């Protein structure tokens, strides 16, 4: 019983990490109408930013978190400005290919600068806590709490603030949003900034679990989070959170059962197939509206 509970908590915390990344995918898809396949590599850049601070300069992990978030936010805005904005209005396939190109560019740059060998990024020395006889890793609780706060905060920003309304407006009808005076380019840049900051946090939380990074650090979490976004219904923010949580919990359960653990990734990805068969637009995805 206690094992099940600790697996659930680990699953929720891993799910929170996927949710943070999935939010970036889903927001960018909803607002800029593109799949940013370089999103996972933003996580990797964040982890190397943390490596520079704690690994090379032996500075505080708190500073590392701050620097990772700042670097990723700036990188997100830069990538949008240089790679995607010139393609606004181009066919979506061109944008998709560009995103894949940006992904390889970031991985190659990391490899040139830091080498292909994985490096250690020692963050905090976490202990276990004992809650009612169940021992739980503290990092799981911290990750879970921070993810929950961030998701609630994001929903609040989108529902209740001027910037949030502008985001919804741009995602629904770019032309009409412009007619309201919304600067579409700026709104898209803000979306990339938020998504990249969340990716940086996700990278840090992944380092809590395993303090090693490499140029392909972001690839697998990136793909899994993309799957989470699709499961939840791409474009939907609560959907990304739900998809992330489902993926994280299923993955941790699969890992905790000895004869299933080698197939954990396969099990995770097969959820996508099942969900898409039952609900092709994802759990909270919108049905295509018929035009009247």
């Amino acid at each position, binding site marked *: 019983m206690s094992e099940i509970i600790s697996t659930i908590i680990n699953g929720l915390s891993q799910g929170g990490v996927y949710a943070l990344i999935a939010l970036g995918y889903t927001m960018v898809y909803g607002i800029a109408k593109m799949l940013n396949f370089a999103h996972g590599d933003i996580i990797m850049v964040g982890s190397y930013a943390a490596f520079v601070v704690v690994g090379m300069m032996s500075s505080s992990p708190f500073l590392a978190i701050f620097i990772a978030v700042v670097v990723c936010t700036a990188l997100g805005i830069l990538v949008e400005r240089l790679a995607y904005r010139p393609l606004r209005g181009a066919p979506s396939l061109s944008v998709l290919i560009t995103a894949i190109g940006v992904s390889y560019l970031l991985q190659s740059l990391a490899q040139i600068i830091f080498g292909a060998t994985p490096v250690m990024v020692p963050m905090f020395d976490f202990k276990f806590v004992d809650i009612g006889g169940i021992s739980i890793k503290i990092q799981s609780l911290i990750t879970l709490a921070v993810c929950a706060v961030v998701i609630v905060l994001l929903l609040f920003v989108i529902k209740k603030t*001027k910037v949030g*309304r*502008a985001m*919804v*407006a741009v995602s*629904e*009808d770019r*032309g*009409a*949003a*412009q*007619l*309201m*005076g*919304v*600067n*579409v380019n700026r709104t898209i840049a803000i979306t990339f900034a938020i998504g990249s900051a969340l990716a940086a946090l996700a990278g840090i939380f992944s380092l809590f679990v395993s303090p090693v990074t490499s140029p392909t650090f972001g690839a697998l979490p990136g793909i899994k989070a993309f799957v989470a976004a699709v499961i939840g219904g791409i474009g939907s923010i609560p959907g990304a959170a739900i998809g992330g949580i489902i993926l994280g919990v299923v993955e941790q359960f699969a890992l905790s059962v000895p004869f299933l653990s080698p197939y954990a990734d396969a099990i995770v990805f097969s959820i996508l197939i099942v969900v898409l068969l039952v609900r092709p637009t994802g759990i909270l995805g919108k049905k295509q*509206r018929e035009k*009247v």
Partner: protein
Amino acid sequence: MSEALLQVENIEVYYGLIKALKGISFTVNRGEVVSLIGANGAGKTTTLHTITGLLRPKVGKITYNGQDITKVPAHKIVTMGVVHVPEGRRVFKDLSVYDNLCLGAYTVQNKENIADNLAMVYDLFPRLEERKNQMSGTLSGGEQQMLAMGRALMSNPEMIVMDEPSMGLSPLLVNEVFKIIETVHSRNITVLLVEQNSKKALAVSDRAYVLETGNIIMEGKASDLANDERVKKAYLGA
């Protein structure tokens, strides 16, 4: 009366290789209601989109209040006092009526001003106040048109550009829409109107221009055009 607020000079607009506007010029004076009438594909919507910056003319110049606005992006035109009520209303269906109205005031900084405008819109369209928390997608067509108009009024406009406001509405609601246009006009807001319902459009307008395949083929006082034989035959169904 005859102070030109909006001046369109010889604009040519292309969609790819297709020339949609073949050099049209017209003027809207402060305080007027001016209509552009014409058949489908004549270039009416294209003209409005070019004025509010959603399209750019290849040739020609648009002046508003003495300022050249030919190259001003759409989102800045609103701050200059021109607001566009687009064809098909295009309210934000996933947002509440209230949120749509707030977006209408996106460019307004002063909170009191926004509150005043909101009160004015609710006063003009009590229906919107009743439904302020409802998702706009669940409103009827007539209510959505009211919302589109109300949303436009939130931005302190000097001039409203309306594209087919009566499209798809029942005859009763069509009359309602034209009443709203008169109300808007009575608040000293200049109106540039595009309508398929030429008869009603001419009835509320001071002047009108007739567009045909990218050219202006006639212009004059609305009352004169309404009695013109050619206009009657081609557009008024008489």
